């Protein structure tokens, strides 16, 4: 009996990677999944933070896909290593701060290292020709195979018919005839194939798999880098960019203001790392102040925070300010009129 071949499938949690893994599984190959956590993944974070989102059923789509397929899923934390890809993408950024081509190369490279360390034979991705503007083009797909080092061990079952023949096909581990020729942005062929497999419930992420494809998120990240004078971020920064409204009234500081109770609670957890403000005379948001500030800046910050409280129409609102040493004082301020909260302050 011939030995059962083993493939690792990059599982994002979306339909394409689910189908790609299923197609290969159907050919009798042993498939396991791998999911890379970059910190920017859309998975559940805002869900965990925002109270109003908590009511929705929540699941980790990658785990769910693995469960549907009945395969193991290896979750890999690549937060630290991934920074270099975000800071210096060799192939540049896309429409926002996304660097999908470099990202894909990096992930396939990690998967290639993984198969070598774990005795697997090849790698599967759910890429579809022409679906994504940057990483899934006719001219960039070979770049992913080459620069990742995976070369002909990278198989894309959903568009294999458009790709040069790979080792798994050549060796007969999989039958090329039973692979697909999906291309373009239409999702219809994938949906039809899903139906064929009897899959009805699957995630259809709109933009992409991560926050870096989000215009607002990218602009907040760009602002952070500019304010710090260097491209750097920590996990806490990535998290905080997902929460609250962000306003930069002065170049030297920005405010993160909660929009609802869940966000307020989340920001509370950062009280020791930031100067923080909270209205006490009226119900209102929790705010963190990020930057080096003087007394005039704190006054302005307090007036802005007061503007987002229930006392916004009042003459005076009391705002509690806690500094980094934990010293707390109260400021009585006039809420800033809404026309004075400039549009360009909003990040």
């Amino acid at each position, binding site marked *: 009996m011939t030995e059962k071949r083993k493939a690792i499938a990059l599982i994002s949690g979306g339909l394409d990677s689910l189908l790609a893994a299923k197609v290969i599984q159907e050919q009798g190959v042993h498939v396991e999944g791998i999911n890379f956590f970059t910190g920017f993944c859309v998975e*559940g974070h805002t869900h965990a933070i925002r109270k109003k989102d*908590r009511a929705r059923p929540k699941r980790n789509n990658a785990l769910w896909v693995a469960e549907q397929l009945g395969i193991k899923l290896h*979750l890999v934390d690549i937060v630290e290593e991934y920074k270099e890809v975000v800071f210096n993408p060799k192939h540049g950024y896309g429409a926002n701060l996304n660097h999908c081509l470099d990202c894909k190369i990096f992930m396939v490279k990690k998967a290639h290292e993984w198969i070598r360390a774990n005795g697997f034979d090849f790698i599967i991705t759910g890429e579809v020709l022409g679906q994504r503007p940057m990483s899934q083009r006719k001219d960039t797909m070979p770049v992913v195979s080459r620069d990742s080092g995976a070369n002909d061990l990278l198989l894309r079952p959903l568009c294999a018919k458009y790709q040069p023949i790979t080792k798994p096909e050549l060796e007969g581990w999989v039958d090329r005839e039973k692979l697909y020729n999906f291309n373009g942005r239409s999702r219809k062929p994938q949906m039809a194939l899903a139906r064929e497999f009897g899959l009805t419930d699957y995630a259809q992420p709109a933009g992409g798999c991560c926050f870096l494809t989000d215009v607002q998120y990218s602009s907040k990240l760009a602002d952070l880098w500019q304010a710090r004078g260097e491209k750097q971020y920590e996990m806490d920064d990535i998290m905080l960019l997902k929460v609250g409204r962000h306003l930069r009234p002065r170049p030297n500081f920005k405010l993160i203001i909660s929009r609802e109770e869940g966000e307020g609670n989340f920001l509370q957890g950062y009280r020791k790392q930031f100067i923080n403000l909270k209205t006490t005379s009226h119900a209102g948001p929790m705010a963190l102040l990020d930057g080096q500030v003087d007394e005039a800046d704190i006054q302005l910050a307090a007036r802005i925070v007061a503007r987002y409280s229930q006392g916004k129409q009042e003459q005076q609102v009391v705002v509690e300010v806690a500094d980094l040493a934990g010293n707390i004082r109260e400021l009585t301020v006039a809420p800033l009129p809404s026309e004075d909260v400039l549009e360009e302050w909003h990040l």
Partner: protein
Amino acid sequence: MSRVIVDARRLLCPMPVIRVQDRAKGLAPGAVIEAVCTDPGVLNDIPAWCRINGHKVLETRNENDEYIVVLEIGEE
């Protein structure tokens, strides 16, 4: 059997699952992990991870804004 505590407080999913997964490596079947978390998402994600990998959830509970999942490592 001793209990391994995984402190995943303040981490958002999927980080708590990754912490549990990495801690589970090399533990013998029958070993027990108690994950202490603050993201309620773990109540779905850790059991899902257990089902995929053949581990058994012994208990989930909510105590003062902390979500605790106790699981037993299964046979390979």
